[in-house]
């Protein structure tokens, strides 16, 4: 067991000693700061708005002004739909007696959820190289002539990849909260926020909602990373692994949606990788799918990926 721990340490060491890894973190931190600057300077989100104890009246006033905007815009479908959704949300706050808060670090962190796709990219790069690079450097020979079975070496690399994913997602969350706190301040309480579920609006605690959404995204990243890891182990080519995984990352979900009218499409991996669809307005591609069904599909694919990588890696001739 302690041997596995040392191996994981070795693998993480090899990831974090590279300058390209540090570049990833610098890029990520840079984008977070830039997005904070853009959010505060643009008027897309009014970050200065706060609500007093008389928030119900304030929300009603806001709704009225939004309505006038729609009337003035005269049949502009974009303004109409975006304003209507804010109005609906505000009415939900009033009806359910949920007090809204102004924009703060929690909202900023939630808004930065989109940056997890950048982490997908980084993780695919790391996962696609973690085995293939050893072949490219020729160090695979040094690595495999140790008193450790090949299966354990592969396992240590996979665990290191998972840890890299978690560390990077945590980095995104922590830096987002920190930058958000500097720009917008921390919320005094864990506020309830209004969210849109497949069956309508609901309220949820902000921290819980944030963690859940980041959790779903992390799972998504791990699936892509596992795929890249498998290709990397089987074909010893990081370019192939990175290319294929990135292609699936961009095209997979779209392809699954395009095929949604066929019943078998629900068994496509990318129809199931994003569990957050069960918690937002979009919903699954087919009505009969449930979160447990998707979880099952994910587990089966992951097992297949891991077994394929393991079989090839432990049996192959290393020349």
């Amino acid at each position: 067991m302690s041997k596995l721990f040392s191996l994981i340490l070795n693998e993480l060491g090899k990831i974090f000693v590279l300058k390209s890894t540090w570049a990833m973190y610098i890029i990520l931190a840079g984008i977070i700061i830039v997005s904070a600057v853009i959010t505060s300077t643009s008027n897309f989100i009014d970050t200065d708005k706060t609500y007093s104890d008389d928030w119900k009246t304030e929300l009603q006033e806001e709704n009225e002004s939004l309505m006038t905007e729609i009337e003035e815009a005269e049949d502009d479908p974009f303004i109409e739909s975006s304003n209507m959704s804010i109005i609906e949300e505000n009415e939900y706050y009033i009806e359910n007696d949920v007090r809204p808060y102004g924009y703060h670090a929690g909202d900023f962190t939630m808004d930065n959820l989109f940056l997890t796709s950048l982490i997908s990219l980084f993780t695919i790069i790391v996962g696609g190289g973690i085995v293939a690079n050893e072949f490219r450097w020729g160090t695979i020979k040094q690595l495999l002539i140790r008193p450790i079975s090949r299966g354990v070496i592969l396992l240590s690399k996979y665990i290191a990849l998972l840890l890299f994913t978690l560390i990077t997602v945590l980095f995104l969350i922590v830096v987002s909260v920190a930058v958000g706190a500097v720009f917008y301040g921390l919320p005094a309480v864990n506020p309830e926020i209004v969210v849109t579920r497949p069956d309508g609006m609901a309220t949820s605690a902000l921290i819980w909602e944030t963690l859940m959404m980041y959790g779903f995204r992390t799972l998504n990243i791990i699936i892509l990373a596992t795929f890249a890891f498998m290709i990397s182990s089987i074909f010893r080519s990081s370019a192939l692994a990175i290319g294929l995984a990135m292609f699936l990352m961009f095209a997979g979900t779209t392809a699954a949606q395009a095929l949604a009218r066929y019943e078998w499409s629900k068994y496509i991996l990318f129809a199931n990788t994003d569990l957050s669809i069960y918690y937002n307005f979009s919903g699954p591609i087919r009505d009969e799918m449930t979160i447990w069904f998707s979880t099952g599909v994910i587990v089966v694919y992951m097992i297949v990926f891991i077994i394929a990588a393991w079989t090839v890696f432990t049996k192959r001739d290393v020349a």
Partner: protein
Amino acid sequence: MSEAAMKIIDLHKNIGRSHIIKNLNFDIRPGEVFGFIGPNGAGKTTTIRMMVGLLNITKGDVVIQGHSIKDDYTKAISEVGAIVENPEMYPFMTGLQNLKHFARMSEGVTSERIKEVIGLVGLEKAIKTKVNKYSLGMRQRLGIAQALLHSPSVLILDEPTNGLDPTGIREIRRYIRRLAVEDNVSVIVSSHLLSEIELMCDRIGIIQNGELIAIKDLHEKAETNEYIVSLDVYPVEESINILRKMEGMEILSTDKRIQIKTIKDNIPFLVTTLVQNDIEIYGVNVLQSTLEDQFIEMIGENIIE
């Protein structure tokens, strides 16, 4: 030889349809330096890769200190330190980081041992430099250091003198001898440069086209009594006829000069016979038959690179 450090038993390797290694059988004794020589492409590296479990064995087995590399891999390999082909290390890490990395993969390698090994190969000054700044010779030393970390009882070095300057070669040679003699480590060194290996080996095995064609004990001096004699004589045809009638003469070539292989004691008799038959002798050169000649002879000169 039950106490052999390593036994190679009926070893075969097929890749696709080609039969790359054919029925190798030999033992490595404890504390000996075994030279594994053959032209490039003869199967040295393939054999070494099977010894350390990098390649699957088609048929046969390699048994290291009583443990089969096929069935008892972890135990067998923990007795082995090796450099396979080039001493490739992580280029973006320092020498020390590389050594620590590999030390973590074996049981009980202390930081004192790492320091000791660095001292042994003389890399103290460069150990905190990144490996991508290393010369081939320095990487070779780091490779040897890495192979020695866990104090193995069998050391396998594939072309260890590659890229080393003459001083470096001498140092490595001295060091390998010391390991064998003082620490009773069995060392297998492969090379296509016979002259470099000759001086450090106790025995050599010669491999060609995947077959072991000879094992020579270099401490048995008796056989080197054979000499090659080159004759500059006239007329050539008649001389050849005379030589053919004599015993113990093997004619190697008749191109320009006649070359024959014979033992030392025959040389005076050879000259006398030629003189008695009125052959004009312009020159007699005696070439000592070195291991290199024997090697070339055995495998044919044209194959050596």
